[in-house]
Structures are given as C-alpha cells and as structure tokens.
C-alpha cells in the first residue's frame, strides 16, 4: 500500500512523509491509557484517532465534574486558614 515513494521524495515542498505521520500516531497511541493492554502491533490510525477523541472527551467531562465539585467546595466554605494551609502545602 505504501508505494507512495514519490510523496516522500517531495517531502521538502509540501508533502508529509508517511514516517512522520506514523511516528506521530504512535506517539499519540503511547499517551492513551490502554496502550499497555493493546497488543504490541500498532493499532490502525483510525482506531488511535478514535480512542484519542474519546479519551479527550472523557477528560473534558472529568474536568467539568471537578469544576462542579470545586465550585461547590469553594462556595460553601470561605477561605479559612485551614484551606489556605492546605493549598500552601500542596503547592510547596
């Protein structure tokens, strides 16, 4: 399938080499949480992209949930000295 040698030859102008793409795709794949479960052979690009989209969506959802939680926490309790101490201990 990859008989597009001509493309890689023109990679200087505006073509992107296949290697680069595969490299980036595998980079993404390594970031996904199920990377260890999957077999050693690389998944197809479509599959990696789909998993990436799903993962980003789930992370967005988590951020939303955490924002809810944080806003409730910050609303109910004023910035007491205990809170400030905790925050400080987290950041140092």
């Amino acid at each position: 399938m990859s008989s597009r040698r001509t493309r890689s030859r023109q990679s200087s102008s505006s073509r992107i080499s296949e290697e680069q793409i595969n490299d980036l795709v595998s980079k993404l794949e390594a970031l996904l949480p199920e990377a260890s479960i999957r077999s050693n052979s690389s998944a197809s690009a479509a599959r990696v992209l789909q998993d990436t989209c799903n993962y980003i969506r789930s992370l967005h959802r988590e951020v939303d949930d955490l924002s809810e939680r944080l806003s409730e926490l910050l609303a109910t309790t004023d910035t007491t000295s205990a809170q400030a101490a905790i925050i400080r201990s987290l950041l140092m």
Partner: protein
Amino acid sequence: MISSSSSSSAPSSSSASASRIKLRPGPPTQARNKWRTGAQERIYGRRLVEALRSSRAGRSAAAGGARAVKEAADSALALTARGQSRWSRAILFGRFRRRKLLLKAGGKVRRRRRARPAGKFAALPHPPAALKGKKVRDRLRVLARLVPGCRKLSAPSLLEEAADYLAALEMQVKAMRTLADALSAAALSPPSPPPPAAAAPEPEN
C-alpha cells in the same frame, strides 16, 4: 539537541514550507514527560489557585460557579503551557482577546513562524497513504474540533497538538482532583469518601 530522529528530511529548503512541521526532536513520550513533571503540576496548581481566588473575589459562586472554575482551570492550563502550543494560544486569545495576558506570562510566548490560518497546508486533500480513507479523515476532523484552535491545521501538526493537549489535560485532571480532595477532606472533619470521578482510567506511566 538531536535533530535526527523524526524531523522533516529536507533541511535545505528551510524557511517557509518544510519548517512548518518543525517537529520537536526527542523521544515520542516527550509531550507526556513535559506535563508529568511535578514542577509543572506545582506551577499549574499555583496558577489555578490564583485564578480561582480572583474569580471568586469578583463574583459569588452561584450557578455559574462551575463554569467559572472550569474557565479558570483552562486559562491556568494554557498559561502553564506558556503559549508554546497552538491550543494554549487559542484558549488565551479566546478568553481575553488581548496579548496583554500573554505578556504577563513572562514574555516567554514563542510564536510559530506561520500565521494562524494554516489554509495553505490543508493536508486533508492530499494525505499520505497511512492517513487516507474517509474514516481517518473524519476522525481527524472530530479531533480538530476537540482540540481548541486546531481546526485548520495540517495532519501532523494536529497530531502533535493533540498529543500535547492530551498530556496537559491529564495533568489538569490530576491537579484539580488533588485540590478537590484536599479541600473536601478539610471541609468535613471526617474524611469524605472519594467521588465517583475516580472511575476514569488512570493514565499508566
């Protein structure tokens, strides 16, 4: 720095076209390692707290409180990225429409050489063999919608941005969860049980 591994193979025709991709040299896990360091998390945590404090001072956490928190978190995340990635710039520009905030980030914002509309490069019509096929192109489009500011990017840039964004999001979730857990543990004298948000997959190292 090693420039051999995966960078574009034509350094001769520099300036415009070839350097557009300007892949960062280094191991493939560089994006994740960058965001995984404790230092990054601390920096982000500090910014997050600052943002939360200032947004609280402005308005009481009413029904819109969650959204304010999320925006503060996203802005803090984008700031921590120091404007070096397209998605972070998109977030910052979107929020404040001013470069003032970027200057505030310590002047370390580095603009890529090309202007924002990347129309000329639109690789979608001519993808390499690995990225042909309707399925892949559709998924790329979906991904471009998810990552802020990447709608018109070429395929490799989009993939790179997505990797960075993903690692950054993981860090954001981790930091926010830590903060929320600590605050809720302090708010109630008996330690509160962990929230159902823990059902999300924990990123393996």
